[in-house]
């Protein structure tokens, strides 16, 4: 019986008259990769901001490994489509940025940053400034910065949304590799149905007005996954189902 790492209990958020997120309950198992898919305005980013503690929900609780973390920060890793690397720090120093924001960076922190960077293909760029990197490389650095926070739960909000299709596929395979190595729990927001299926164990489908969860689907596709996965019948079947849910039965 796998343990539940994150539990949302009737968490909702309203901005004025707009229900950004209807009261939502959700459990995320330890070590799983859960994709949240939905069109803009479905409340997925609001959901993330509530989990991250940036937004206080109108009601309900956010529980991480048994302790309530509602509206408090510092408990999760967090990454956006914008890489948010700081231009005045090198790759190595950007990786340790999260640490630098809470305490003094030690030699061990730096050593870990270098080890992670070397392991995942950025070893030659440790002393580069972000301005010298491509979009895909910048997102890798941003992900490593998220990784070395040692948070069990990583919230990734459309991290590859700004990348071209080719780079995006490379990054997805790369992410799966890192996820497998590190055993973290990932919550991954995307509006790209293919991406949600390719990456996840489970797909949470959300819908707007009001933002809410409309389906919670298990993903039966086997791992490891590669380009071949995209052509499997199970992939196509799941895609049809998700598209149907998103577009109200037109698919």
């Amino acid at each position: 019986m796998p343990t539940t790492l994150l539990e949302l209990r009737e968490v909702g958020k309203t901005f004025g008259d707009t229900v950004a997120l209807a009261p939502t309950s959700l459990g995320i198992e330890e070590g799983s990769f859960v994709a949240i898919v939905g069109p803009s305005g479905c409340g997925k980013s609001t959901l993330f901001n509530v989990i991250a503690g940036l937004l206080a929900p109108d009601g309900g609780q956010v529980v991480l490994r048994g302790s309530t973390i509602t509206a408090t920060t510092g408990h999760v890793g967090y990454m956006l489509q914008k890489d948010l690397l700081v231009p005045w720090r090198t790759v190595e120093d950007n990786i340790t940025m999260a640490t630098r924001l809470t305490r003094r960076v030690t030699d061990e922190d730096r050593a870990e940053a270098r080890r992670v960077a070397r392991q995942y293909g950025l070893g030659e760029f440790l002393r580069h400034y972000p301005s010298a990197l491509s979009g895909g490389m910048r997102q890798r650095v941003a992900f490593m910065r998220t990784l070395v926070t040692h948070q069990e739960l990583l919230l990734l909000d459309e991290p590859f949304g700004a990348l071209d299709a080719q780079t995006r596929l490379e990054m997805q395979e790369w992410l799966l590799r890192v996820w497998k190595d590190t055993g973290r729990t990932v919550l991954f927001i995307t509006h790209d149905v293919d991406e949600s299926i390719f990456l996840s164990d489970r797909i949470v489908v959300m819908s707007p007005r009001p933002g809410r969860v409309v389906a919670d689907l298990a993903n039966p596709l086997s791992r490891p996954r590669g380009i071949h996965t995209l052509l499997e019948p199970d992939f196509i079947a799941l895609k049809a189902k998700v598209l149907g849910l998103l577009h109200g039965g037109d698919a």
Partner: protein
Amino acid sequence: MRRRVLLNVGVPILSLLLVLGLWQLIVVGFHVASYIAPRPREAITSVTSQWSTLWPLILGTIRETIYGYVIGAVLGFALGVVMAKIAVIQRLIYPVILVSQAVPVIALAPVLVIILGFGIVPKIVIVTWIVFFPVTVNVLDGLGHVDPDLKNLARVYGASRWRTFVQIEVPASTTPLFSGLKIGAIYAVTGAIIGELAASEGNSLALYQEHANSNLNTAAVYGTTMVMTLIGIAWFLLVVGLEVWSTPWQRRSVARRRWRRGADGPAE
């Protein structure tokens, strides 16, 4: 590399030489009498021939400029930060600061001399008065435009306000900060000279020039003006140098080797 040096150093020097050339051309071409405008060479000689007299005066002006500038820069930065962080203080202080800059400094200078005497203090106050404003305005602007997502990210990581300020907000504001510092640098000497003029007593570069003027020594008037200008430019270039040194990421793609011990870790 050589090309860049030529572009960044050679061309600006050339443009200054062109100005001197134009000056020479006008004075000679229109037969301007030397009591109205000397030739560049005469102006320069008026300085070099009186160097032993001028040098202590130059040092005095430099001292006033440095003290006033450093105080103005620190004060300007602090005001910018406080105003950016506390809305009430911003509303409270902004009108006062605007009024302070709307007052013509020339009109203010004699008043400061009456209050603070003939020493270095009123000159420092005037330089500070001129320098802090562009720094404050730019720091306020810079801190107001830090990417809110970046600040949110710091919050998610559990960063304190202080660390967010030091690690994110200040470095993110370096470009506007240096804009303010550079504007301040070029005006700082003007402030010092206004202060010297207002004192109308003692030994100073401004009074030396006034003395030369009343003696119809036009060459020395021009020469002293050139000296004052050079102090301003030197100070400006020093600030530019500081900017270049402290913001390597704006020109380089790879960081310089670090001096910190152990920063590069064990060899592979």
